[in-house]
């Protein structure tokens, strides 16, 4: 089955970020979204550890390890950058000041529940800012492969892994489709032209509603 690369998923998610939006990108894969801002639009990126409006990574060897993002990777400042402490940073998050948070997922349920912090009781649990982000941003979107490495659905009726948040996700960008969550159901908005709704349903763990036209999900090679 054809599928989008991670870069392509990130590209698609970036198209929905409006000019002037305040955006938090989860650590890891979601950080890629920043690379695909459409020309002419300016997004302002927030990182939990106290920087608003930071710039891209510096060249290797020129890192300032006091200027890092939530993933502890070096970033840069630019005109308009502001620094602040952690309580102010999470006031931005929890207080509804972010326009969108884009996060990774282990599982997403049709209820909007998200599981992305723990794969179960083994090992060392670590949550970071994920549970705050899902309850703060005006819009919480997920980017993810449509299925696990073993080919099992990640979009489910109910999450099986420990939850990050309840009823928080409203849009999922996968390697195969763009799916909204409305009224506790998955609503298919876009899919790769090469796969049928039936094929998509077969790798999705809950019913996909198709109440209106489904657009072709066409993404450039990026």
């Amino acid at each position, binding site marked *: 089955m054809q599928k989008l690369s991670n870069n392509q998923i990130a590209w698609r998610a970036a198209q929905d970020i409006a000019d002037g939006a305040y955006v938090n990108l989860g650590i890891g894969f979601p950080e890629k979204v920043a690379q695909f801002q459409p020309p002419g639009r300016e997004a302002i990126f927030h990182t939990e550890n106290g920087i608003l409006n930071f710039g891209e990574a510096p060249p290797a060897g020129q890192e300032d390890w006091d200027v890092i993002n939530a993933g502890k990777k070096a970033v840069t400042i630019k005109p*308009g950058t502001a*620094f602040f402490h952690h309580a102010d940073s999470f006031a931005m998050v929890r207080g509804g000041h972010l326009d969108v948070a884009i996060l990774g997922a282990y599982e997403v349920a049709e209820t909007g529940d998200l599981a992305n912090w723990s794969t179960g009781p083994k090992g060392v649990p670590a949550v970071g800012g994920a549970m705050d982000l899902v309850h703060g941003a005006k819009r919480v979107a997920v980017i993810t492969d449509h299925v696990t490495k073993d080919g099992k659905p990640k979009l489910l009726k109910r999450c099986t892994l420990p939850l990050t948040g309840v009823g928080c996700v409203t849009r999922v960008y996968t390697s195969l489709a763009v799916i909204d969550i409305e009224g506790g159901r998955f609503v298919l908005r876009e899919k790769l032209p090469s796969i049928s709704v039936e094929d998509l349903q077969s790798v999705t763990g809950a019913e996909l509603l198709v109440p209106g036209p489904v657009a072709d999900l066409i993404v450039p090679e990026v």
Partner: protein
Amino acid sequence: MDKTVADLATAVAGIEDGMTVMIGGFGGAGAPIELIHALIDRFRATGHPKGLIVVNNNAGNGHIGLAALIEAGMVAKLICSFPRSADPVVFTEMYLAGKIDLELVPQGTLAERIRAGGAGIPAFYTPTSYGTDLAKGKHVEEFDGRPYVRERWLKADYALVKAESADPYGNLTYRAAARNFNPLMCMAARVAVVQASRIVAAGDLDPEGIVTPGIFVQKVVQVANPHQEEDLNRAHATYPLEA
């Protein structure tokens, strides 16, 4: 991104009847006099906005700024800690005549409720006001053997704020104790409208010294030489001001 608007009228556009409006300042320090006067101008021209719920530490002084807003009959209710001033006659007369409602809130609780509104904290506990008339009807709970009063967040549709410097992203600095409630109100309002004495280019503000990051600010208008409420009152000014 450019949050600056051209004039005061544009800055206060969108404030409608019945809205909750937070107004910065502690007495005259940090009071956004020009924004308030622009709002009064709109009311004089259109009859709106009226029936406002205003949040401020005080209740105005003399016949300018917040006092003039109240005197114009635009305010249905005031949420404040200290409705007294050197010349509190406007509020006092309207309050005693039953023409304006008052919700009296201890000053620290007022500040914390506004901060909570901005920070997504719907309620918190404070020792302040326990056992007093101002705690009547409020939920009380003990933590570690000490009683505390539960208070709710305060949010607003708009905030009118006075800053010293602003950049196009809405990053702000303040001047001395004119800071007071202004940064908190930026956080707690859906639309924070800022009058800044100086608008500078992005990058001109030290990122270490920004007090209000731009995410909390929606509109900025330059008012290069703002009135100081105390000076106006010492000159016995009334609004509209004489030219």
